[in-house]
């Protein structure tokens, strides 16, 4: 599944990084501690978090993520959007919880092959 399919299928809104929505999703991860995500998120994953400041974009670039999802109606800071546009990292908005979306993604066949890879 590509990021654009995820947006269409689960009613997400792209707040930034719209040029990067054609990437294939290779897994999912939930976390709000940046070092923990940096160490453990699978390469190419969709990352569900409630962090909204600009440092999330560097983490997503370095872990080669497909997208960041801000759960619970959290809104990205303006600087976060600028960086995400520049790095082509989609920032997606979801009104429900990370848990709920993670369940839907898992049900749609997005599973992690191995942790951290």
């Amino acid at each position, binding site marked *: 599944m590509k990021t654009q399919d995820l947006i269409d299928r689960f009613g997400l809104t792209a707040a930034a990084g719209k040029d990067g929505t054609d990437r294939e999703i290779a897994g999912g991860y939930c976390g709000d501690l940046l070092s923990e995500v*940096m*160490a453990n998120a699978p390469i190419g994953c969709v990352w569900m978090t409630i962090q909204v400041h600009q440092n999330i974009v*560097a983490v997503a670039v370095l872990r080669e993520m497909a997208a960041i999802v801000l759960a619970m109606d959290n809104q990205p800071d303006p600087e976060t959007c600028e960086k995400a546009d520049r790095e082509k990292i989609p920032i997606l908005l979801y009104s429900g919880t990370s848990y709920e979306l993670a369940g839907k993604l898992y049900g749609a066949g997005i599973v992690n092959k191995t942790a951290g890879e």
Partner: protein
Amino acid sequence: MAALKKSFQLKSRDFMHAGEASISVQNMLKQIGIEPALIRRVAICAYEGEMNAVTHGENGNFRIEVNTDKIILDISDEGPGIEDIEKAMEKGFSTATEEYREMGFGAGMGLPNMETNSDRMDIESEKGQGTRVVMRFSLSPGSRKNET
């Protein structure tokens, strides 16, 4: 291959640019054809080192060198220094402020992540004298500490 060197200045609390040195290093290593698994290890170490210098340090300097047999990341700052290095290496120990914790820093995983993902890490630090962390990554698979 001639040694490749690149260096970056890191400004204290400059979150607008924090992470850019690490992303630049990642791109550079991709361009010269370093294997993806090794780039990922270097990227984790670069990011943690860069964020430490930006959040705790002053006048940070971030340097990478790639030579025939290894990659060296050398990150230093003129910040407050580390009082007890052994304690700082403990998983979960952090001196991050409440403000930084709210931003997702201060998990107490930075230095342990750097040690786990490099083949060798050396820290020089004294209270009030700044901190220097040098990490080495072998380019020959046989002499690596780990492969994850």
